């Protein structure tokens, strides 16, 4: 369980003048769930595309189950199952027809093919609707089928690129549970998301990406330690934040203040001690605090601490 499933070394990808990935290095251990967490445009999907041999790195290399993505792409592709961010299915075919076709593309045939299609239909809960046109499925059903295709050839590594974007909470819950189940069965999972909660719930280890770089990497507890015991406090005001930010930065125990769309976020040593002083200062500046949200140290706070921006900015 300690061997490296994925080993990325100083990976770069440029699109003209845009440096989408800039020197990413990381390791994913066999059997773990590893998440790449970062805002949109952080370079997660580009990194995934290079691991799936869809994009050629500008520099650096990555090895998947010991195979170089540059020199042995076919060997890499045999070991991975990729779930793309967008639903990539043939809507005019049925679930069974889709699975059968993709199974052939993974080299399956005959009885083995039929058996795997049946198994996957069972896993993704589409046995009853297997003959219906995919166009007629709900969004959640399509997402499940989208994942099911990547499981057909029993890949050693499952790569999921933001699989929960734009779906309802129930389907999201279903997908997260499914991913955990695959991992329990021994599958290594590389998961990208910009939802902190998903990374926190699923992952053994997390790499936080921003602007093409890994800015932090480790287990959830290790990452949280980066921000120490700081609480994150989100406040909404009835007036522009600029009227209080200077005064609040002078308050003892307040470390970092950022504003976003009328919401003000700050990191504090102890929110219980800091909050009364914030209210007092707001009164003195004729500003009303209309809502307060206190969060224990988490990945959101880590990202804020490391980048000065909220994860979903």
């Amino acid at each position, binding site marked *: 369980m300690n061997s490296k499933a994925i080993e990325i070394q100083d990976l770069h990808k440029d699109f003209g003048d845009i440096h989408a990935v800039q020197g990413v290095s990381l390791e994913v251990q066999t059997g773990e769930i590893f998440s790449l967490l970062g805002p949109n445009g952080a370079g997660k999907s580009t990194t995934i595309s290079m691991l*799936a*041999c*869809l994009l050629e790195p500008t520099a650096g290399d990555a090895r998947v189950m010991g195979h170089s993505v540059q020199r042995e792409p*076919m060997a890499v*592709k*045999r070991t*991975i199952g*990729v779930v*793309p961010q*967008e*639903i*990539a*299915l*043939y809507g*005019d*075919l049925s679930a069974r*027809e889709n699975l059968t*076709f*993709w199974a*052939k*593309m*993974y*080299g399956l045939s005959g009885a083995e093919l039929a058996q795997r299609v049946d198994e996957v239909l069972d896993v993704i809960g589409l046995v009853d609707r297997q003959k219906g046109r995919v166009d007629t499925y709900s969004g959640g059903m399509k997402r499940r089928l989208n994942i099911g*295709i990547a499981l057909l050839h029993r890949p050693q590594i499952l790569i999921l690129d933001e699989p929960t974007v734009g779906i309802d909470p129930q389907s999201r819950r279903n997908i997260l549970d499914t991913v955990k189940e695959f991992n329990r069965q021994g599958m290594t999972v590389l998961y990208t998301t910009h939802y902190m909660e998903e990374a926190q719930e699923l992952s053994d280890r997390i790499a936080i990406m921003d602007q093409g770089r890994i800015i932090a990497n480790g287990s959830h507890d290790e990452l949280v330690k980066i921000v120490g015991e700081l609480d994150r406090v989100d406040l909404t005001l009835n007036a522009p934040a600029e009227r209080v930010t200077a005064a609040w930065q002078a308050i003892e125990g307040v470390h970092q203040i950022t504003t976003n769309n009328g919401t003000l976020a700050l990191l504090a040593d102890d929110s219980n001690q800091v909050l009364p002083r914030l209210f007092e200062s707001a009164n003195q500046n004729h500003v009303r605090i209309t809502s307060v949200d206190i969060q224990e140290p988490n990945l959101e706070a880590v990202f804020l601490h490391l980048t000065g921006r909220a994860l979903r900015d």
Partner: protein
Amino acid sequence: MKALHIAFKDLLRFFKTPFVLIMMFGAPLLITGLLYFAFGSLTGGGDLDLQAVRVQVANLDQPGAQGDGFAAGEMLVEFLQSEDLGDLLEVTLAGDEAAARQAVQEQQADIALIIPPDFTAAALAPGRETTVVQYEDPTLTIGPGIVEDLVSQFIDGFSGAKIAADVASRQLEAGDSVAREAAMEYAAWLESSGHDHEGGTTSALNTRSPAPGGESAAEGASTIGAIMIAMTIFFAFFMGANSAESIIREDEAGTLERLFTTPTPQAIILGGKFLTVVLTLVVQVVVLLLASGLAFGINWGQPLTVVLVTAGLIVVAAGFGVLLMSFVKNTRQTGPVMGGVLTLTGMLGGLFTSGVPNMPEALDTVRLTMPQGWAMYGWELALQGNGVSDVLLPVGVMLGLGALFFAVGVVLFRKRFA
């Protein structure tokens, strides 16, 4: 093998899409079918269905003894009542002129034909004339003309014989017995020839419908064949582009990228997509040729020639489609590009003027600047029944152009997805 799986998957998707089925098979057969029925069967298999003209004949002819039993009026009646004219005329006899006219007025007959009392005498005597009177329903257009032509033809025969005999008798100074002899000879010939179709002699009046497979039918089949093949070529080029467009549709849907994540070389994936284009056209063209051959009775030509021009058409249409789509960036562009380019090149290639007579000869040269024109040229040769050696040039050009288009298209697509 994976390339075949990709192609079969695409074919399965095509056959589940009503629009594609309409453009593949429905539209070309429908357009040709409309032309076929609009122009009353160009193959000659659907003759104009005329109702028989009802003719009341009042035969007032009084031949007398001068003709040795010869009665021209009686012969005219028998001629009009002959079996050969049975489909055209429904002849009944009236007792007198008034009864015949009355029948027309009461619309129990379309035409009343009054044979005058001196009809036989006029037929036999040189220089003597008489008049056969025809009353007709003024609302009729075709029927009276038919009867008039038939009676005129009958009478002209006597007139010609009389003139010839008159000249001969004057030369021989042998009186009118020669004229009578000639008239009776003509009458005997007319009677015998008018009833002797089965004997193989030429009929005085050929009123039979053109026989299937005859010259007229062959011309008709050739015309409808030219129209049908023009439609087949146009829609084959359309389907070539449409099936090549599936590469772009898959790219936009994300399934092409997903295919690239499977352990399948890119060359095989693109090869499968190109195979889709070829297989689609094979199915389309073969079905259209068979279906239209059965529906419209078209003889496409010698089998080997047809196989060659079919292969040429498929290759050039597939190559053109791949080339065309290799320039298109997304599916928003495909509609205008396909509609515009294929319509323009189809027009210049002569697809919309096939079967139209008296087109300027310059167009024959212009059309050969287009791949569709070469396809049309090859098929015209096949339809004319030419052999393999006659179609080698157009087939060679089609295969060459197809290969060239295909090669350029493949290079551009591979560059795009590299």
